C-alpha cells in the first residue's frame, strides 16, 4: 500500500532524509519511530503530497505521489502533527466541509458515522474552539477517516493526550487495521511496540532498523532476560555472583529486590537458575522473563550508529 524507495529530501544545505526505503502491506500498522527531528514528519509530508521529495519514489495505493498526486491524495487520510481545525466551525460543519472536499457521497450520513466512530456525536454542534484537546484530536482523526481511505497517515497522534485518552486512541488505531493500512509516527517506543505489526526506526534521516517488533529483538541479538528474586541469608551481591556463574548467562545485575540475568542466544536457562538458587540454600520467590523493550533496541541501534559515525 505504501512504497517508498530511496527518498531524499534536502532543505537547502540540510539533508533531512538520506535515501530511505520501506514498504507497508495492506492492513498493516506501520510504526514510524524516531527521536524529534529524525525526519518522520518530512517523510509523512512527502507521502501525503504536501511537498515533493528531492529525489526518490513514493507510491501510495499504486499511485505515484508526485506524478499522480490527486489520485494518490484521494487514497490517503492524513492527520498532521498540529491538528488542522477551523476554530470558528462546528464539529459537524468542519467534518461536512472535509467530506465535501473529499467528494464523499452522502456527506451528512458519513459525517454522523465517523462522529459515532470517534465517540463525538454529543458534541457535533459545538464550536471547535470550545472543545478540549483530546476531543480535537478525535475530530482530527474523524477528518482523516471521513472518506474511508485505504491508507491512513497519522503524525504523532497521541501527543498531548492524557493516559486514558492515549490508551483509547491506541486501541482505536489497532481496530482500524482490518480496513486500513495505518502508518503512524511516534517517539514513544512502547507505543509502537504495543500497536504495530512492523516498525521502522529512523534517526537523522536514515533508517536504522525495520521489522516486526519481535523480529527486531532477535535480529539485534539482544538475547533474553530473566528476573530472579530469592530470600535467604545471602545478599543481593552474592546472588549476582552465584547467578553469573550459571552456564549460558552473559551477565547478571541487581534490579529492585532481585537480580536481572542476561542470557546469551535465547537459551532456556530457567531450570539452571532455579537449581543454582536452591543449591545455595536460598528460597526462590520469583523467576520470570523480562521483555526487552523497544527503548533498549532503539538505544542500541542509535548509539551504535552514532558511534560508527563518530569513528
Amino acid at each position: 500500500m505504501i512504497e517508498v524507495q530511496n527518498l531524499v529530501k534536502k532543505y537547502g544545505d540540510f539533508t533531512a532524509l538520506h535515501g530511505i526505503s520501506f514498504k507497508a502491506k495492506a492492513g498493516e500498522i506501520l510504526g514510524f519511530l524516531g527521536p524529534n527531528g529524525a525526519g518522520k514528519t518530512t517523510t509523512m509530508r512527502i507521502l501525503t503530497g504536501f511537498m515533493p521529495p528531492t529525489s526518490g519514489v513514493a507510491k501510495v495505493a499504486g499511485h505515484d505521489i508526485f506524478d499522480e498526486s490527486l489520485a494518490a491524495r484521494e487514497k490517503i487520510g492524513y492527520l498532521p502533527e498540529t491538528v488542522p481545525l477551523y476554530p470558528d466551525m462546528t464539529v459537524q460543519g468542519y467534518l461536512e466541509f472535509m467530506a465535501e472536499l473529499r467528494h464523499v457521497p452522502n456527506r451528512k450520513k458519513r459525517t454522523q458515522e465517523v462522529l459515532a466512530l470517534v465517540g463525538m456525536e454529543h458534541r457535533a454542534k459545538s464550536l471547535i474552539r470550545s472543545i478540549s484537546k483530546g476531543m480535537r484530536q478525535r475530530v482530527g482523526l474523524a477528518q482523516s477517516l471521513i472518506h474511508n481511505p485505504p491508507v491512513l497517515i497519522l503524525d504523532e497522534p497521541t501527543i498531548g493526550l492524557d493516559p486514558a485518552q492515549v490508551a483509547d486512541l491506541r486501541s482505536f488505531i489497532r481496530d482500524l487495521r482490518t480496513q486500513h493500512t495505518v502508518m503512524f509516527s511516534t517517539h514513544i517506543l512502547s507505543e509502537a511496540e504495543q500497536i504495530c505489526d512492523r516498525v521502522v526506526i529512523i534517526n537523522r534521516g536514515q533508517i536504522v532498523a525495520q521489522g516486526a517488533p519481535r523480529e527486531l529483538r532477535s535480529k539485534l541479538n539482544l538475547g533474553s532476560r530473566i528476573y530472579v528474586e530469592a530470600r535467604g541469608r545471602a545478599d543481593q551481591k552474592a546472588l549476582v555472583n552465584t547467578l553469573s556463574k550459571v552456564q549460558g548467562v552473559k551477565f547478571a545485575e541487581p534490579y529492585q529486590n532481585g537480580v536481572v540475568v542476561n542470557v546469551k542466544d535465547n537459551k532456556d536457562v530457567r531450570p539452571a537458575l532455579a537449581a543454582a538458587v536452591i543449591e545455595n540454600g536460598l528460597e526462590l520467590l520469583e523467576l520470570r522473563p523480562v521483555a526487552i523493550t523497544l527503548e533498549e533496541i532503539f538505544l542500541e541501534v542509535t548509539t551504535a550508529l552514532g558511534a560508527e559515525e563518530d569513528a
Partner: protein
Amino acid sequence: MRNIWTVYKREIRQYFVSPIAYLVMFAVLLLIGLNFNTDLQDRANFEPADGTVVLSTFAFLMVFFAPLLTMRLFAEETREGTLELMLTMPIRDHELVIGKFLGAWAFYSIMLAVTLVYQGILLALTNFDASPAPLQSELDLGPIIGGYIGIWLFSGATIAIGMFFSAMTENQIIAGFLSMAVLFILWVGDLAGLLPASIVSTRVAEALRVISLQSHYSTSFLEGVVRPEDVYFYAGVMFIMLFVTTRLIESRRWR
C-alpha cells in the same frame, strides 16, 4: 469547479461568523451613510443629486478596509496548520486560491449591494414631489450603473492584491499592513501628476496614473462610461494576482 464551489462556500460562511467582518461592514456602511447625508444636505435645492458619491466613498474605504478582510485568507490557515491539510486534499492549488478569492469578493459584493439603499433614497427624492426635501432635476442613472460595475471590478482587484499579501506571510498584521500600503500607493498614484515636475517627472507620473487603481474608475465608470481598457485593467490585476498567489502557495511545497 466543484472544489472551487466547496472552498467558496466555506469562505463566505466564515465571514458571516467572524466578528471582524461585521465590524468592517458596520464601519463601511456607517461612513458611507454619513458622507451620503452630508453630500445630500449640501446639494439639496442647489445641485442635481449624484449617486456616485456613495461609490467613490466605498472605493476609498476599500483601500483601508479590504486588507482587514483579506489578511486572514491564507495567513490564518498557515498559522493554524490547516493549510497543510488543504494542500494534501485532492484539490488543485488554483482551485483553493480561486475559491477563497471568490468568497471574499462575494462578501464585498454583498456590502456593495447594501449601498443600493442610498440609490433608492435618491430615486425617491428625485421622483416624488411629496418628498420632504425634493432635489432638482432627475437622477442620472448612467454613472450609477456604470459606477457599480466599475467599483465592483475595482473591489475584486483590491481583494486579489490583499490575498496575495496574505499568502506571503503567516502574520495577519503584516499581511494587512503591506496590502494597505500597496493599495494606498496604487490608489493615490493617480494624483502623482499634481506634484511639481521637479519631484516627479511627467513620464513617471503618467506611468503611475496608468497603473493607478483609481484612474481606471474615476474618469470612466463613475462618469457612466464603460471602457474596455478599464475592464481589462481590473480583470488583468485580478488574473495576475491570482496567478502569483497560486505560485506562492505552490512554492510552499518546495520549501
